[in-house]
C-alpha cells in the first residue's frame, strides 16, 4: 500500500491515539523526571471548630513564585526511579551488604514497596496466564464435544464471568467468601475447620486472588479457542485418524500446533491485563497482603496529597515491565511480519 493511502486510512485512529495516549505518555515521562518545588512552610495559629493550635501551613505566595518560574517542578533526572518508593537502589545495596544470608536479603527487599508490589504482580501474571490458557482450552475442547443443543446455553454461561465489571464481580465474590458467606461456610465444611477464613492469611489471600483471576480470564481464552477449533481443517484430522492417532494425540499433534497464533494472541492480551492487576485487590480488600504496580499508582494519585511524580515513575516502569514480558511475543510477530513482506 502506498504511503499516501496508508496515511489517510490510519490517520483518524492514529490521531486519537496520539492525542489521548501518546501526548499523555510523553508528559508522564517528563513528569517522572521532575519533583515538586520546595514548599515554603510557615507556622501560624490555625483555628477550627475544635480549638486553636500553632500549626504549619504552606506559604502559598512564596511557593507560587517558585512554581511560576518552572512549572514542571525541579528536575530530578532518574532520581525518582531509584528512590525508596521505586527501584530503591540504595536500600538494595544496603540490604546486600548488611545481610549475610539469602533469606535475610530477600526479606529486606520484600519490605520495599516496589518489590513487594512487583512480586505479587509477577506471581499473579505467571500463575494466572498459563492457567487461563490451559483451562480456557480445556473448556473450549469440552464445549466443542457437547451435543449441538447444549452448545448455545453453555457458551452463554461460559461468557458470564467476563461480562461483569471486575470491580463489582470481585466484590460479589468477596461477599460470598466471607467466613459467614456461602462459599466461606462451604469451605469450612469441606476442610472441617470452623476457623478457616480466606481473608486472614497472606497465602490464602493470594490463592483467592489467583482463583478470581483465572475465573475472570477463562471466558476470553475460551471464546477465542472455541472459535479457533472451528477452523481446524477436517482433512488433517482425518489423516491423523487414519494413521491411528488417538483423540488425545490428535489434540496434541494437530489441534494445538494449528492454533499456535491463537495462543500468542491470548497470551499477549492476558499477560498485559494480568500485569496491570488492580480491581481484585481492591474488591477483595486484600491490600494488607497483596499490592500490585497498579494499586501503587492508585495509592499515589488518589490520596489527600496526590503524588504525580511517583505515580508517573511507577507508570513508566509498568510500561517497561509489559514491554519486557511481551518481548518473546513481539519477536514472533516481527518474524511473521517479515514473512508477510516477502
Amino acid at each position, binding site marked *: 500500500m502506498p504511503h499516501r493511502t496508508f496515511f489517510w486510512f490510519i490517520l483518524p485512529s492514529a490521531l486519537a491515539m496520539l492525542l489521548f495516549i501518546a501526548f499523555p505518555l510523553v508528559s508522564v515521562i517528563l513528569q517522572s523526571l521532575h519533583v515538586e518545588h520546595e514548599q515554603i512552610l510557615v507556622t*501560624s495559629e490555625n483555628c477550627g471548630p475544635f480549638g486553636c493550635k500553632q500549626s504549619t501551613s504552606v506559604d502559598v505566595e512564596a511557593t507560587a513564585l517558585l512554581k511560576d518560574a518552572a512549572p514542571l517542578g525541579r528536575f530530578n533526572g532518574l532520581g525518582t526511579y531509584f528512590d525508596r518508593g521505586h527501584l530503591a537502589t540504595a536500600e538494595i545495596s544496603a540490604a546486600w551488604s548488611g545481610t549475610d544470608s539469602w533469606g535475610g536479603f530477600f526479606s529486606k527487599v520484600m519490605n520495599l514497596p516496589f518489590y513487594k508490589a512487583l512480586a505479587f504482580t509477577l506471581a499473579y501474571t505467571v500463575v494466572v496466564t498459563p492457567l487461563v490458557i490451559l483451562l480456557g482450552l480445556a473448556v473450549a475442547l469440552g464445549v466443542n464435544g457437547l451435543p449441538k443443543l447444549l452448545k448455545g446455553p453453555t457458551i452463554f454461561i461460559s461468557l458470564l464471568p467476563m461480562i461483569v465489571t471486575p470491580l463489582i464481580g470481585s466484590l460479589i465474590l468477596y461477599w460470598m467468601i466471607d467466613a459467614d458467606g456461602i462459599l466461606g461456610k462451604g469451605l469450612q465444611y469441606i476442610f472441617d475447620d470452623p476457623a478457616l477464613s480466606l481473608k486472614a492469611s497472606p497465602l490464602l489471600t493470594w490463592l483467592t486472588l489467583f482463583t478470581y483471576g483465572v475465573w475472570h480470564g477463562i471466558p476470553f481464552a475460551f471464546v477465542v479457542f472455541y472459535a479457533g477449533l472451528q477452523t481446524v481443517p477436517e482433512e488433517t484430522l482425518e489423516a491423523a485418524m487414519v494413521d491411528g492417532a488417538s483423540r488425545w494425540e490428535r489434540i496434541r499433534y494437530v489441534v494445538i500446533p494449528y492454533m499456535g497464533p491463537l495462543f500468542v494472541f491470548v497470551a499477549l492480551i492476558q499477560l498485559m491485563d494480568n500485569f496491570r492487576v488492580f480491581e481484585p485487590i481492591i474488591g477483595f480488600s486484600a491490600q494488607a497482603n497483596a499490592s500490585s504496580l497498579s494499586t501503587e499508582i492508585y495509592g499515589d494519585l488518589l490520596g489527600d*496529597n496526590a503524588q504525580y511524580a511517583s505515580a508517573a515513575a511507577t507508570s513508566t516502569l509498568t510500561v517497561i515491565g509489559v514491554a519486557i514480558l511481551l518481548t518473546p511475543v513481539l519477536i514472533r510477530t516481527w518474524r511473521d511480519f517479515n514473512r508477510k513482506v516477502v
Partner: protein
Amino acid sequence: MNMLRKAALGTAFAVLSGTTAIAGCGIGAGNVSIIANDFPAIHAITDAAKACEGDGLTITANMTKEHQTLNAPGMSGTPAEYSVAVVANSSIVALLNDGLVRPLDDLIAKYAPDLPNVNKVSVDGKVMAVAFMANAQHLFYRSDVLEKAGVAVPTTYEEVVAAAEAIRAAGIMEYPVALNTGAGWNLAEEFINMYMGTGGELFETGSAVPTIENENGVAALNMLKRLTEYSNPDFLTFDSNATQALWEAGDTALSVMWGSRGAAVLDNEGSSDEIVSTTVLAAAPTLGGGSTPATTLWWDGFTIASNISDEDAAASFQAMMVGISDEVVKANQDAAVWLSPVYEATPASAGVIASAQGGANPYPMLPYVGLMHSALGDNLAEFLQGSESAEQALADVVAAYTTSAKEQGFLQ
C-alpha cells in the same frame, strides 16, 4: 431505641456556638457550582441551596465519591469549574497548598456577620472554610453483654481489653472487638487516633520532619495489636461497612466506629431489637493513663474557589449559608452532628459529642499529613500480622513518608 441520653446531651454544641440567623435567599445573580461528597447531609445542603435558583442565579452540584480527586483540578482553571468545594480537615490541605481557595473574611463580614467562631476554620487569622458538621470515631458498646460478663463500661483502652477478655472468658463471644483496621486509609486512621491518645505529635513543630518513631508510636501500635487479638482474624479487611455489619449481626460488643454510622446502627433495619436497644454510643476511650480520648475529631465544611469572579464568590457563599441555615439543620437533625445552635443532640451523636467534650484532638490540618496517612496505611499491616516488630513498622513508615515528602518538596 434508647432515648434517655437525649435530654442529657441536649444542646451540647449550642454551648460552643453562638447564634446564627440567615434569612431568605435574595442572593442576586451569579454561578454557583458545588463539588462535594455524595451523602445525605450534603444532599440536604445542596437541595436547600438549589431552591434559591432564579433571577440570574444558577446552582449546580456534582456530588461524587471522587470529589477529592476532582476538586483540585476543577478549581485550577480560570474561571474555576467549581466555585464551592465541600471538604474535610484532611482534604482541605490539597486546596490550601495550591492556593485554590480564597479567604472568606470579607464575605463573612458582609453576609454572615454573626457566624459563630465554632464554624470558622482559619489559617493564620484568615478564615478559609466554614465548617458545618462534626464527626469522630468512638466507642460503641453493648450494655447487656457487658452486664452479663460482669464488667463496667470501659473508659480506657486498657479496660476495653480487660472487658474483651472477660467477655471471651465468659464464653459469650470469641471476638468481641472490632475496629476499622482494614489495611490502607482505615488502619492509618486508627493509628493516628491511638497515637493522639498517647499525647504524641506526628511532626516536629513547624516542619515536615516525622516524630512517630518514639515510645508513643510503639505504645499506640501495641494497643492496636492487643485489641486486634480480640477481633475476628479478618480484621485487616475491616472497613466501616464490615464493622457495622458485624455489630448489626450481634457478633461484636465493643467496637470503635464512626459517629456518622450511629444513626444507621440505631435504626431498625438490619438488626434485632435486642441489639439495637442495648447499643450505647460513648466517648472514645483514653490510653496509657492519658486524659484525652484516643480519637481525632473531623469537620466537614465548605470552601470558595480563588479563581472565580467576586460576584460568583458572593453568590456561592450566600447559597451555601442558605444550605446550612437553621431551617435545614432543624429539618435534618438525624443526618449529621451539625455545628449549629439549633442542633439537638440525638442518641446517635452522643459519642461524637462526648469525645469532643472530653478534649479529643482534631485531625491535623497539615500540608503533608496526607503523605503520612498513606505511609501509615501501607506499612502497619505486617506488624499486626506479627511478621514485623513495632519499631521496624514505624521505621518503614518514616522511610516511606520521607521518600514521598522529598518528592513533594516538603523535606529537602
